[in-house]
Structure formats: C-alpha cells, structure tokens
C-alpha cells in the first residue's frame, strides 16, 4: 500500500514537473485552437476570454451541448487538463472531441488561457 502511495506521489510530481509557458501556449493556441475558437468571439466554439475560473457552458450567447451546459463544473487547471486530454471522458456527450495528447502542450495552453481574463 505504501509503495502504491509513493508511486502515485511520484506520478503527481512528474505531471507537474513541466514549467508551463504561456507564450508557447499562445503559439499553440494560434495553430491548434484557432480553427474553432477565438479569445473574444464565439465562433464554432465559445469565446475563451475568462474561461479560467468560469463555470463550464456559460460563455455569453454561445449555444452549448446539453452535456456541457449541465456539467456544473468550474474550469480550473486540473479540469482543463482532463478536458483537453479527453473531452468525451470528462463530459460524455460534449461536442468538441478535439484532444491534446501531450501533457506539456496542455499545460502551456492552460497557462495561456489563464492569462486571458
């Protein structure tokens, strides 16, 4: 049991070892997210200004999937990471379906989104 706890702790340390880079996150956003999203405007996906700390499914005037509109979660770093890794696993029935498999890419994107207040 103790060894499992140590392993879990080490895994947690590994997951947070990457120093998030908001500038790199901005560059990733410009190539990976810009097809559907903008910071200031709802497009195919909702506007991202203020997404960090916002309740899911609450961007003004954006028509969400029922799944996300009723998810009742607040976007923090952990939930954004899980969402970007596998949106369908976090919120079954969502419509995004785009995933970001690399941990470092997700961390940088989240760091950038965090700056978009």
């Amino acid at each position, binding site marked *: 049991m103790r060894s499992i706890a140590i392993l879990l702790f080490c895994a947690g340390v590994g997951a947070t070892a990457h120093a998030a880079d908001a500038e790199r996150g901005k560059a990733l956003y410009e*190539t990976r997210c810009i*097809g*559907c999203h903008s910071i200031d405007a709802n497009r195919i996906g909702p506007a991202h200004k203020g997404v960090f700390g916002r309740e899911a499914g609450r961007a003004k005037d954006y028509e969400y999937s029922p799944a996300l509109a009723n998810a009742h979660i607040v976007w923090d770093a952990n939930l954004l990471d899980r969402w970007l890794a596998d949106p369908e696993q976090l919120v079954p029935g969502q419509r995004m*379906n*785009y995933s970001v498999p690399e941990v470092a890419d997700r961390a940088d994107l989240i760091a950038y989104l965090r700056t978009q207040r």
Partner: protein
Amino acid sequence: MDCSDLIAPARRTFLGRAGKATLSLAAFSLIAGNEAFAQGAASTMQDVNILNVALGLEHEAINAYQLGALSGLLQKPVLDVAVQFQGHHKGHRDALAATIRKLGGTPVAEKSLDEYARALRADTLKSQGDVLDLAARLELGATNAYLGVIPAFKDSALAKVAARLAADETMHWSILASALGRPMPMAALSFGA
C-alpha cells in the same frame, strides 16, 4: 461528392437501421437491454457531432472567403484563387451535410454573413495581405482541427474523410503561405502537433 459512400457496408447497414438515431434511441435501447445497439447509436451520435463541428468550420470558411471577395481588397488573380478555395469548401459543406443526414443527424445551420464578419473581425481587414493572413490562419486551424479529431471518430471511414479534408486545407494553407511570402515549415510533422 458524398463522403458517406466511403462508409463501410456493414456500418451502412447499421446506420440504415439507426437512420433516425437520437439520444432517445440510445436511452430506449439501454432500457430495452440492447446495450450493443445503444452503444452503436451513441457512437453514431458522437460521429455526427464531430461532423457537425466540421460543417461549422466549412460554413465559416465559405463566409470568410465571401468577406474577402466582397472587401474589394483582393486583386484579380488572387480573387480567382480565393473563389476556387471557397468552391472547395462548398464541396466539403455539401459532402458533410449529406453524410450527417444519412447518419440521421441534422446539419448545423449557416449563420448570417454579418455574424461571421463580426466574429472574424472583418472590419480590421485593410489590405490584401490582411485577407490572406486571415485565410491562412483559418486554413491552418482547420487543418489541425481535422487532424485532431481523427482519433475520436468511431467509424474509421469517417476518420479517413477527416484526413482528406485536412489534406485540402493543408493545400490551401500552403498556397496562401506562399502568396504571403512565408517560408515552408522547417521541421517535419509540423501539422497536427
């Protein structure tokens, strides 16, 4: 073009039965104890959702090129290419909408040109370079969006359709980047990552 022709025959048979697939169908199947059928219907709905996001991208691309064409900023040879690219996107739109209908879904509606103009900040376009830059950003974004959803498709034939759409968008981006005088990517595997 009708990309639903690429769907495997066994899948089409299932989809024919599930042609009116809805959330209630999945729920009914679960209640009736037919878990496999319910999972199939749920998978179909997820694929329809992805295709509808793709259709939304194509609506926006068509309107972005329309805004560019109406701006008066594009010189004649560039305008011709923009109209040709818009035609490709109309082909994508028609194929996606037909496939969504065949899968029992409802294609997402196009918004008004004014709505696209506001969302894409068309009022900030002041030169031909601005229009091409916007088009290049959208085409690169679409390329990466299509590549990024490929793993999420339950039907591998639809994943192939997404790859073919990504190839068209990459072709558009390459020509636009060249017109803007931008260098080709230095590294291999630069798309989708």
